[in-house]
């Protein structure tokens, strides 16, 4: 089996303005993300021959990758929708690498957009996960509930406290305050977190991420072609996935998730270790998700996340800057698409506000997490 580490690179990236976009539609946000990505890569749509997207949450969008390709003037030889929830944006990059190495495409656009802050006028019906009728009759309706089960269990097994989770929220907000394209930019304190209202105990309002309108895209090609593009390419060094259960009813544990095996696979492929990472863009749909993933990724031992997130260790300038863009908690929740674009910007250098730049950023890790704490995907990226 060939090791694909370093065979492909990200040569373009685009982000839309995020937050409330009342005049936008699901279609327009995807197209806007594609356009900004093509402009960044300095090419036009006819030079793209692959398109991957995340299955939209509306049943009127079938075979959406093909529809979107033709709306954007792309004639794809490789296209599909992926459906791994918040692990999808990373999985798209992984599928792009596989398609390029298999000779099915040379230049693949990976695009994701959502309209969840303001009403989406697209006709149709929402897509559901499929097992909600084993939860909702007992009043369990929300992703916050599933993650609150994990938080409660983590607190029981390891003595983690709500105040520990607050450190993730505070540091992430600090980073968002430095990002012009972030939704919530007013710094918060541990006390603000502790006084924020309970949503699903033990999770409070400031443990929860945003609902956002916006989109993002990255363009993947082989390293041989990467030098033809104007911006500094970012190599794809490591990839992994693991999906250890589907729902809360078949989860063997909620305190170690797919991130453990997924990251082990990615580290092995890249030949790198946790301490080689200059930053981490970790899926933070809730504070607890980031804390568990930091443990699963080997940045600290299982159960020690509560100490790892303190003392500025996860802030820019610290040992492992975490979510330098403000994450899903404070920048925008676009299923982690912007965790990837942020990693690309950090590794290019000179693309973010100077106070947000991680000094000498050479290698970083990115995580995606989806469903009922079920799906997980990992990327390790490096500056070329």
């Amino acid at each position, binding site marked *: 089996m060939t090791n694909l580490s370093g065979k492909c690179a990200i040569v373009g990236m685009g982000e839309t303005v995020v937050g409330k976009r009342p005049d936008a539609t699901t279609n327009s946000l995807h197209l806007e993300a594609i356009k900004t990505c093509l402009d960044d890569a300095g090419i036009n749509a006819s030079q793209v021959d692959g398109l991957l997207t995340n299955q939209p949450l509306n049943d009127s969008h079938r075979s959406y990758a093909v529809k979107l390709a033709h709306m954007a003037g792309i004639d794809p030889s490789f296209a599909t929708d992926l459906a791994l929830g918040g692990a999808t944006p990373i999985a798209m990059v992984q599928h792009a690498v596989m398609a390029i190495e298999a000779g099915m495409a040379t230049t693949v656009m990976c695009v994701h957009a959502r309209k969840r802050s303001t009403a989406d006028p697209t006709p149709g*019906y929402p897509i559901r996960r499929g*097992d*909600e*009728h*084993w*939860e*909702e*009759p*007992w*009043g*369990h*309706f*929300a992703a916050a*509930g599933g993650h*609150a*089960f*994990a938080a*409660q*269990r983590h607190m*029981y097994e390891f003595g983690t406290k709500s105040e520990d989770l607050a450190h993730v929220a505070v540091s992430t907000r600090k980073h968002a305050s430095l990002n012009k394209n972030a939704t919530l930019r007013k710094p918060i304190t541990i006390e603000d977190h502790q006084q924020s*209202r*309970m*949503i*699903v*105990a*033990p999770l409070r309002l400031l443990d929860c991420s945003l609902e956002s309108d916006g989109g993002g895209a990255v363009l993947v090609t082989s390293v041989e072609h990467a030098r033809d593009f104007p911006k500094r390419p970012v190599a794809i060094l490591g990839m992994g996935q693991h999906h250890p259960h589907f729902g*809360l*009813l*078949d989860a063997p544990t*909620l305190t170690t998730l797919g991130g453990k095996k997924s990251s082990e696979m990615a580290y092995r492929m890249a030949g790198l270790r946790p301490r080689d990472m200059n930053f981490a863009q970790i899926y933070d749909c809730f504070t607890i998700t980031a804390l568990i993933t930091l443990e699963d990724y080997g940045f600290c031992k299982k159960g020690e996340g509560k100490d790892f997130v303190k003392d500025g260790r996860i802030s820019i300038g610290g040992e492992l800057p975490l979510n330098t863009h403000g994450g899903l908690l404070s920048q925008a929740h676009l299923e982690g698409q912007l965790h990837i674009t942020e990693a690309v910007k950090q590794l290019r250098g000179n693309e973010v506000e100077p106070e947000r730049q991680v000094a000498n950023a050479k290698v970083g890790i990115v995580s995606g997490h989806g469903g009922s704490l079920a799906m997980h995907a990992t990327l390790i990226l490096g500056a070329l």
Partner: protein
Amino acid sequence: MSKDERGRAARRGQPYLEEPEAKPFWANLREHKLTAQRCSSCQKIFGFPPQALCPHCLASDYQWVTLSGKGKIYSHIAYHRPWHPSYQDKVPYNVSLVDLDEGGRLVTNVVDCPPEEVRIGMAVEVVFEDLPEYTLPKFRPVKQV
């Protein structure tokens, strides 16, 4: 009646009583029996949701067996925000994951116990809440003798 306007599964917040694999589960609950599928080949309990083939060995023969109704809390939460209008007056309310002694886990509610007194590992037993259209299994703490 458990389908939406397009004939698909379950109104929001309701069980889907006609789901072929789960129909006996809901019918048995009406008679105050908590049941699960047991594989005729490997003898293991399938777990929930019910399915046509054994998740452990993919055998297609199984029996519905009545469980003891005893279990332990794997984790518990308290909803302080009502996501559904019918819960407006119920917050804060408990939702728990109960691991049943014979195998299988349910999302359920612990009743006869204030939400703040529910604990991980707590021994619980089934009680049946009869509603006009269906019966829900819920759990209460086992009284210490």
